[in-house]
């Protein structure tokens, strides 16, 4: 890595110290900007041009790292787990004959990964080169005390787009803060939903949609309305689990029907 760790902004919690190599690697995760950045660092260790790296070896190294991290119970960001799953898939595609001509071949996938690594490397180098240029106010200076000549016909108000957006953002935030001040007390609890469903089910022996159980004025798509829906859905699962209720759904996103569990079934 050409850039010292002190540049990092996305530090994760420090890991407990351990003598093993794995812990050493684990400690190093602080130095990476996500899984592709880590893969790039591993690839550089192969000390060949990125187009000639061994993708298999790279995948193995990464998978070993993830396995070790799990062994020492390090909580990895989801990005790393997704990448590990993808690399395992890539590995299988590289090692096994292609089962399905419709899907991209292992070589195609490896090429895509190589490109991704090259592209990130290019941008990391570009960033370094950019920052190495003489910068205004650091190595190069404009006139220290310009008298000012108003030449360009422009508004005399000193307002940038940033100021404008910031003002709107601040306003929105204040508005949200006041909205949310009372919102939490309106959320529907699962306990309430279980109680409500249990009370009503006794009177409804036949299939009824879940939504018809929702309290009036709570099915309007607001946060509180959605909290009622979520609470009632969880309550449904809870009651089904304890055998008090049967649930039926025709297909994904279809309406959910419930009825009192008949003692016979």
């Amino acid at each position, binding site marked *: 890595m050409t850039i010292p760790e002190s540049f990092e902004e996305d530090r994760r919690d420090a890991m407990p110290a351990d003598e093993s190599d794995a812990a050493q690697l684990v400690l190093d995760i602080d130095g990476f900007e996500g899984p592709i950045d880590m893969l790039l660092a591993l690839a550089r260790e192969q000390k060949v041009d990125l187009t000639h790296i061994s993708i298999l070896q790279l995948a193995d190294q990464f998978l070993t790292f993830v396995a070790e991290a799990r062994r020492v119970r390090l909580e990895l960001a989801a990005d790393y787990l997704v990448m590990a799953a993808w690399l395992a898939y890539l590995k299988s595609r590289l090692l096994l004959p292609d089962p399905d001509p419709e899907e991209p071949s292992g070589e195609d996938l490896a090429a895509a990964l190589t490109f991704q690594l090259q592209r990130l490397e290019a941008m990391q180098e570009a960033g370094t080169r950019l920052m190495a240029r003489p910068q205004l106010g650091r190595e190069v*200076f*404009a*006139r*220290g*005390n310009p*008298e*000012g*000549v*108003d*030449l360009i016909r*422009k*508004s*005399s*108000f*000193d*307002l*940038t*787009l940033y*100021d*404008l*957006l*910031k*003002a*709107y*953002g*601040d*306003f*929105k*935030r204040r508005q*949200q*803060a006041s*909205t*949310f001040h009372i*919102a939490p007390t309106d959320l529907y609890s699962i306990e309430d939903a279980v109680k409500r469903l249990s009370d009503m089910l006794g009177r409804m022996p036949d299939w009824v949609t879940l939504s018809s159980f929702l309290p009036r004025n709570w099915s309007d*798509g*607001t*946060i*509180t309305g959605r909290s009622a829906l979520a609470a009632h859905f969880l309550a449904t699962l809870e009651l089904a689990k304890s055998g008090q209720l049967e649930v039926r759904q025709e297909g994904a996103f279809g309406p959910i029907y419930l009825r009192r569990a008949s003692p016979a079934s």
Partner: protein
Amino acid sequence: MAALPPTTDRHQQIRLIEALLFASPEPLDEAALGSRLPEGTDVAGLMAELQGLYANRGINLVRTGGRWWFCTARDLAELMRVEEEVSKKLSRAAIETLAMIAYHQPVTRAEIESIRGVATSKGTLDLLMEAGWIRPGRRRETPGRPLTWVTTDHFLDHFGLDSLRDLPGVEELRAAGLLDSRPMFGSLPEAGEAGGE
């Protein structure tokens, strides 16, 4: 490029003095300049040479109160004098009002007041109109036919926007960090989100 250590060479010494005076927000005396040069350097001699170099230029090197500075040539003063406009800062209320009009246009003054929750002074709208950023739009066809306000083309020019559609929406402001909501509720989508259009 790696320059020669400039302090050893007379030409480089002059160049350094030139750059230092140019970048300094205030005039510098010879002691201050000398502190950037090797001990024993003939600063006064260098200054005289530099002054000569600029004698006929549009910028002159002058000394007042024992301190040196560059200034524009006196004889150009007549041509340099332009209607000197001081750049003014807008009040927070004015910036917010402009943001409301930008995001909610066409919008009436009463609507701006109800969104912001405070009264808008007539002066604020006048100021924004004077800056050329807003103009009256159509009247709203409601009782009292109130005037609406919209932004101008000059508004787009000033902020480097191609069209009003290029104003970031609320979600994008949030994503850019301009709307750091409290973490607990940050993930909850807002009820009845207006989307900032």
